[in-house]
């Protein structure tokens, strides 16, 4: 397939890459400035290129904690860069994050940037070597803030974030905004896959002394390639085991004895083969495999490859001028053995496994959408639950209370339906945890909507079941204790909160009944304390708000419901919204 690389980067104007590469190199060589700005007038593009640093401390400054210098990302600045299930926040290199924070203030106030945004020019953040991570984090920062959508171009950049980082970028649909150019043997894009070591310092010091120009031709270090690539190869093999579906039980035991780098590629990678051809790869698992396998030793001897791995780090402007100038570059999108990267048969298998993994995720999604046992069944069961709820209203009790009593056939059928739904959602939850669904599954409006309907309608039944069997005595309160609330609900709530850009825990309307039940139990146990009073007031406020925005059904206000009976029995001095809630109850009674 022949296309320009710019075409493959969404919304990037033709002809930007080569000048961006030159500016990025220049910024790297300008120690007095944090970043350089260049307007490419005829393209209506503004490029900002960040300065890098070759001081080992600016790469592994947080070394005290771990040989990889990683740290949790600052979710205040990067609220989306985390897992929406159990995976937690993304991890990034602490030194790079620190250096980004250092630049951020100056960057936000840069008049060139302000002007570019004002004039709706395209903004490109670029970085060469360790300037790359700054460009990546800056791009991400502005994408999070939604002020404008910059593009990011890096050249020979080290890795910045972990698997969650890459997952979050793909989930948010930002992956295509980031393009990373990597030479076939350049050591720097691989260096973060190896723990910080004397080899690292040798490599960085070499580049630093080249930069300082005190020593025009510093002696290149040697003997590092085997160590760095060996460690990087461990990471690639570990991931390949997963991609290939390794079921050898020893894998987990072996893994517990090995410390692997947390860093993984993210965004789109463009591999420069060295003969003018470019290979574009978007699947992050495939990128990792290519990063390692294309730099393996071939027929030529190790010392030569080692030297190339240093030389190629400085070769980007020339390479890209050759690839992009004049003739259009050959760009391979598929994994194709004829792509000039010179991959071994084993590497080919790894790439096929990476591709199959991606295919399987798409198949799983398709399956959920079209197989009768998933989405369609959820909808059928939700319809049953809706009918159950309507019928329960007629009895003036509400479905929560009639479910808790489990007296009628309908209550039993609702219970079976609850379990049917739990089965499907639990399966989806497990698939998400194992990354067996596409990264953007939790962002898809159809599933957020379906999940939210499910959560609001059915979680009260789980709560009723929980308190009917007094499970709080075994596990602790439904809301508080970790083992009690089914994780499927927590995840689905998280999807909605993320979608609405709300605080975590702010959409817990489906927990209303659990709060009521637990307050009842705690009052019986401890009596009326100030803490209880505060919780009652909070409950009242939640009730009014949730009834107001219809996220909680008003059948909680039915005369015979557990809530109304309990609330009426509360001493007046413990209520703060007595009149309003009384009114709501009366309105409900009149309305039915």
């Amino acid at each position, binding site marked *: 397939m022949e296309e320009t690389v710019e075409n493959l980067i969404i919304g990037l104007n033709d002809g930007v890459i080569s000048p961006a590469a030159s500016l990025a190199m220049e910024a790297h060589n300008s120690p007095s400035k944090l970043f350089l700005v260049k307007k490419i007038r005829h393209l209506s593009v503004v490029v900002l290129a960040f300065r890098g640093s070759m001081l080992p401390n600016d790469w592994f400054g947080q070394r005290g904690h771990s040989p990889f210098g990683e740290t949790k990302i600052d979710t205040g600045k990067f609220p989306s860069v985390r897992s929406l299930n159990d995976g937690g926040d993304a991890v990034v290199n602490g030194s790079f994050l620190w250096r980004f924070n250092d630049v951020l203030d100056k960057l936000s106030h840069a008049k060139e940037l302000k002007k570019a945004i004002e004039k709706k020019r395209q903004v490109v953040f670029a970085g060469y070597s360790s300037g790359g991570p700054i460009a990546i984090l800056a791009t991400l920062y502005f994408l999070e803030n939604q002020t404008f959508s910059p593009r990011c171009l890096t050249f020979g950049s080290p890795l910045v974030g972990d698997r969650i980082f890459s997952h979050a970028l793909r989930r948010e649909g930002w992956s295509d905004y980031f393009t990373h150019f990597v030479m076939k043997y350049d050591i720097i894009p691989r260096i973060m896959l190896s723990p910080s070591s004397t080899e690292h310092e040798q490599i960085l010091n070499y580049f630093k002394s080249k930069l300082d120009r005190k020593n025009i031709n510093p002696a290149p270090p040697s003997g590092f390639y*085997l160590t760095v690539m*060996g460690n990087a190869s461990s990471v690639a093999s570990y991931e390949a085991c997963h991609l290939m*579906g390794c079921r*050898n039980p020893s894998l987990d035991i072996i893994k517990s004895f090995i410390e692997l780098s947390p860093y993984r590629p993210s965004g789109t990678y463009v591999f420069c083969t060295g003969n003018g051809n470019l290979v574009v790869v978007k699947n992050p698992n495939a990128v990792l495999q290519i990063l390692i396998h294309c730099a393996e030793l071939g027929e030529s001897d190790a010392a030569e490859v080692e030297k190339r791995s240093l030389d190629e780090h400085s070769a980007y402007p020339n390479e890209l001028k050759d690839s992009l100038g004049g003739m259009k570059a050959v760009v391979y999108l598929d994994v194709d*053995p004829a792509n000039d990267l010179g991959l071994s048969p084993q590497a080919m298998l790894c790439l096929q496994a990476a591709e199959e993994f991606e295919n399987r995720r798409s198949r799983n999604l398709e399956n959920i959408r079209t197989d009768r046992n998933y989405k369609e069944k959820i909808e059928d069961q939700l319809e049953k639950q809706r009918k159950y709820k309507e019928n329960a209203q007629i009895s003036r009790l509400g479905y929560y209370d009639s479910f808790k009593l489990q007296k009628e056939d309908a209550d039993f059928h609702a*219970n079976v339906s609850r379990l049917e739904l739990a089965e499907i959602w639990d399966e*989806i939850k497990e698939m998400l945890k194992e990354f067996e669904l596409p990264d953007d599954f939790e962002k898809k409006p159809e599933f957020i909507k379906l999940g939210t309907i499910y959560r609001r309608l059915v979680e009260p039944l789980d709560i009723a079941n929980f308190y009917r069997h007094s499970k709080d005595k075994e596990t602790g309160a439904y809301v508080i204790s970790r083992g009690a609330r089914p994780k499927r609900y927590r995840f689905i709530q998280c999807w909605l909160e993320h979608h609405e850009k709300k605080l975590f825990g702010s959409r817990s309307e489906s927990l209303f009944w659990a709060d009521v039940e637990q307050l009842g139990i705690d009052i019986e146990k401890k009596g009326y304390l100030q803490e209880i009073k505060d919780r009652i007031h909070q409950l009242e406020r939640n009730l009014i708000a949730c009834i107001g925005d219809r996220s909680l059904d008003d059948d909680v206000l039915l005369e015979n419901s557990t809530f109304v009976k309990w609330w009426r029995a509360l001493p007046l001095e413990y209520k703060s919204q007595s009149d309003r809630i009384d009114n709501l109850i009366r309105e409900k009674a009149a309305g039915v």
Partner: protein
Amino acid sequence: MSQAPLFSSAGELANLVVTSNLIDVAWANIPEIQRGQAAFPCSVQPMVYRPTPNRTILVFASSPNCTQYPLPEGGDLVQSSLFQFLCPKECPSVSINRASLDLFISLQSQLPGLKTELSEWEGQLIITGYSLGGSVAALFTFYLLDSMDKKSKCRPICITFGSPLIGDFGLQHSQWNSFFLHVVSNKDPVPGLFLPSGRSPPTSSHSQTSVYKPFGTYLLCSEHGCACFDDPDLILKFLTVASSEVAEGLQLVVDYGEILRNLKYRAICKGAQLASERFAYPFSDGIVMELKTIGIDPAEQKIDTKRMEAEARTLAKETKASEAKKLNDRKKAMAQLEWYKKKAEYEKKGYYDCFRNEENSRQRNVKLFMEELTAYWEEMVAEAERKPQKERTSFRTGWLFAGTTYRRMVEPLDIAEFYKDKDSGRDYINNKRSQHYKLLEQWYEEAAKPRTREDLDSKKKKVSVLLTEDSCFWAHVEEAILSCESLRNANSTTPEQRESSWNNLVRFGEYVMKQIDNCAVSPDIFWSGSSFMTWWGEYEAYIDNFRNFYSSRLVEYMKGGGYKQYG
């Protein structure tokens, strides 16, 4: 629909092992110790190193004589009570290689202290050894694992280099096998020494040696590369080839340090040939490539890659998601049974008698759920049984609670079926009771904590929702009814039979009273029309007519109407 492609990860797993420094660390001290050992006699010494604060290395160093000529006459397998704990269900005993076992036993004075010290160690523990030293390391690892409990923070792994096979079938089934990694070179004849076609010394008998089996994961190496397999057949073939191909190999000392250095280098090499096209059959193409790398010709050795692929496909279906689904299926079936019970209660019928007397679609439905649950639990129990003793305990505690509820819900229905069918005969407990119920009950008893007075008090409050604890309660009731019948039909029974029936009834009375005292029965046994009350009617009539002066606590309790206050 065509099936999704599968892959063999043997090469990648091996690459992970080789490029991480795990085996280098395990090997690091061995050559030096080896040199320091006196050549004679053949002996093994444990040595402890602590290279970093969170890592301990335990090396079993064998003397050079022992390493190069590992078995003057120790090649046969002997049964060992020491490792009896590893026995799977279907195998009565475990047999161990004599040479390894003798060396292990020769260390008896040091091992208990070492074991105590190491099981308290909080961190990584690498247990390693070369040749026979590795065999002893493996035995020690089992010995240590057996004594460690779940709370132990010690994380062991056993890595052996060029060690001979140490045992038979009995060793293959332990879940601990994932803790073992055996490094073997195709130039090393020692690991396959005991195999029939290998170079077994003439003194050992072949009938004994043919049953050696590998266990754990093997890192199989050649000068071209390596692969990790845990398939016993394949490993045996590799070992056989290695030991028969090495000419005069017994004199050869294999330098695993050199082998590892070469493999590390190979790991980041492309190899001679580059990929020219995509693989049409990734699994078999991959495995053939891996086998050729380690020097095995798959056609010549008749390696069944189809079987391996089929096994991989079965494993691939067992995902976390499918496990979650199975669990929920079980919950659904239980909900159905609970509902049946509840419905029976609304009709003022006991769960047991409702099922026993009914013959309709509702009852037939319940049977389907019973079957589903029974199939599930029989499998779970059988799986737990297959595991060696120690693992069984930890494996089952997780689901014992659910298994007990199942037993209490479903076994009464099995009993009802048994006694409903007049042809079944008598004595369900001894003649018909399924093994999985017996085991579930036995394990529950073993795990149950002694009851306190508070437990009983809180139980009294919720007696109405309790399940009858003894899942065989109704079998006892049915037998008691039959005993009453035999007493009543004095014409057709002998005095001995009547005597035995009466004794049965006395015992039954004591049994029931104990259950009532412990609040261990559901109040539905006292509902009118229940089998229990039927029994009581007959029993009361009998004693009123024939044993007017007999009384017992139960008779008083029932006559006095105490049962009306139960629950």
